[in-house]
């Protein structure tokens, strides 16, 4: 219990630091959104228009940084991240809530799938080391070495252009309105298959390799030999004794990759023009949309923190040695 409270306090402090940094960093960037609009219109804006833009974005009042900071926090608690500049006048929270589910579902499912499949394959390969199964390792290595954007482009050119069985871009059929109808969900799944496959393929090899190596290490531990000597079934020894211990290092890696689901999908979503949060972040940065950037950064930071916390607690559940007492 004490362990739990200590960890929670640690994460609250970290979250505060992250949110504060998130507030200051965009303000340290050179330029402002009005400047970027002026550049966009290449000097065809009158000074009056510029002035009204400043008023519109609320950048005319010369409020102090501290006041901004306090306002920022009160806004956060109300779920108010401000209004997006690029999608004006849509609130940031709405932009995020429209793009986040796409990323969470696509990348979430494929990351979890990649981890589960990769770890199971690693358990099998590690358990049967020194047999033909070791021949699969170079193949896995090959796929993990391919840069992801390239794998994505190859997948598109192969399965969307040369053999057009999957759509090349987008999250759903253009004519459909997002709702919970069978048509829409079917279309969303159909559009998600190719990007999901590329994510699974590029991530699975890493899990296979790390799990296989841990399995080989753990298999020579005395307690695995003892389990064999006790006459336990092969399955029990393999999963309960060997894999149960070998998976521990993978758990923290997995939790980290869960945290990067939200933030690390920029490439996937750009390659597949997928309407997720990475794509939105890319647009926000290129148009200096501070409120949207801040909102997305905050979501990314918090999801990494939450994933870390989950990893900590999962570790405490799985490995009794980490439950420090006193």
């Amino acid at each position, binding site marked *: 219990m004490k362990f739990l409270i200590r960890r929670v306090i640690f994460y609250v402090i970290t979250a505060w630091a992250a949110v504060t940094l998130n507030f200051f960093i965009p303000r340290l960037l050179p330029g402002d959104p009005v400047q970027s609009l002026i550049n966009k219109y290449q000097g065809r804006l009158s000074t009056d228009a510029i002035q009204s833009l400043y008023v519109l974005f609320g950048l005319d009042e010369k409020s102090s940084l501290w006041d901004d900071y306090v306002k920022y926090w009160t806004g956060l608690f109300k779920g108010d991240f401000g209004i997006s500049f690029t999608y004006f006048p849509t609130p940031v929270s709405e932009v995020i809530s429209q793009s986040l589910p796409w990323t969470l579902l696509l990348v979430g499912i494929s990351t979890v799938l990649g981890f589960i499949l990769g770890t199971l394959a690693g358990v099998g390969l590690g358990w049967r080391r020194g047999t033909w199964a070791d021949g699969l390792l170079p193949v896995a290595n090959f796929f993990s070495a391919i840069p992801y954007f390239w794998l994505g482009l190859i997948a598109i050119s192969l399965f969307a252009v040369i053999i057009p069985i999957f759509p090349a871009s987008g999250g759903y059929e253009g004519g459909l309105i997002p709702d919970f109808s069978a048509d829409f969900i079917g279309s969303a799944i159909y559009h998600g298959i190719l990007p999901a496959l590329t994510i699974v393929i590029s991530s699975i090899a890493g899990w296979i390799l790390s799990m296989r190596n841990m399995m080989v290490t753990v298999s020579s*531990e005395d307690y695995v030999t003892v389990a064999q000597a*006790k006459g336990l079934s092969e399955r029990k020894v393999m999963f309960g004794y060997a894999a149960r*211990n070998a998976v521990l290092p993978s758990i923290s890696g997995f939790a980290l990759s869960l945290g990067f689901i939200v933030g690390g999908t920029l490439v996937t979503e750009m390659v597949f023009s997928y309407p997720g949060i990475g794509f939105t972040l890319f647009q926000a940065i290129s148009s200096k949309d501070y409120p949207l950037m801040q909102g997305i950064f905050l979501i990314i930071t918090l999801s990494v923190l939450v994933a870390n916390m989950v990893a900590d607690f999962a570790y405490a559940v799985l490995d009794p040695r980490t439950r420090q007492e006193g």
Partner: protein
Amino acid sequence: MTLLDAAAAATPPRERKPVLEIRDLSVDYGYDQNAVHALQGVDLTLHAGEVLGLAGESGCGKSTLAYAATRLLPPPGVITGGSVTFTSARDGHGGDLLRMNDAELRAQRWRDTAIVFQGAMNSLNPVYTVGRQLVDGILAHKPRTRDAREQARARALELLEMVGIPKDRLGSYPHQLSGGMRQRVMIAMALALEPEIVIMDEPTTALDVVMQRQIVEQIMQLKDELGFSVIFITHDVSLLLELADRIAIMYAGRIVEDASSEEVYKMPRHPYTAGLLHSFPPLRGPKRDLAGIPGSPPDLVNLPTGCKFHPRCPYAFDECKLTDPALGPTRFGAAEPERQVACLLNDERVAPGPIPLELGVRPEGDRIA
């Protein structure tokens, strides 16, 4: 005990039932012609109720023998020949372990032959409680009835009590126990199914001397109560002299001498055994100079020709470089029916003269002409 008594005890009139017969067992590490021959034609018999000590320097194949006899040899170890026959002293069931299929082998393991391993620290799964590990071993050998788990738990508590660990430790994780407690748990675990054979592979090596003594005494006490046979593997000959009924001395993957511990101590027949005895202070009697054995154990990849011990042997003669002696009767033949030794000095046809004084001690004090 006088020497005469010892000799009488070594050839008991009662019938001795063999429970484990290892015949011509050979083990290689590696698969090709560069394989290391870790065991070569090992013959060893364990009788019911007996404590058989297995001694030798590091790397002589003691542990390999234990792993091979239970088919737990990790790769790249390969059993290249021989047989390991278990025969129950209770109901006669058994068979050749090396020819059993996986299911038969799994059923045989732990129920008939249990093992306590060298590493007290690593023998327990760190993520399961002690209780869970005691219970799963018991459950693997019991029919799945509704109250099997309850019974296994009750048995686990009983076992902990038997080795002197408080019952509330059942829910502890291995890292919460001391080294001595962990090794006691391992002993309790080994006895869970009342096996007929318990193989102890240096069970006390990782413990301090006080704990060593307690554990060894406990093992011997439990052995007297429960009546299992023990193969006790250690490099500590002085420990074996105290607790073993019979001692087999190993050198370079072979058994070079097999005799009762009293005989080994007082009347060694193999020069290597004599050397081992000179490498620690005598248990009783006047002090003598510690000599040790010159040289170091042979490289198993590059074994000497003939007798593997001849480069280090003070009694070696020409024939030793040519002939690898087999384990057989001593020079005294029928007078020592229970003893076996692998040394050409005991072969009258090739030995250059009478057996050296040190290797020819007889209970009556007489020597062969």
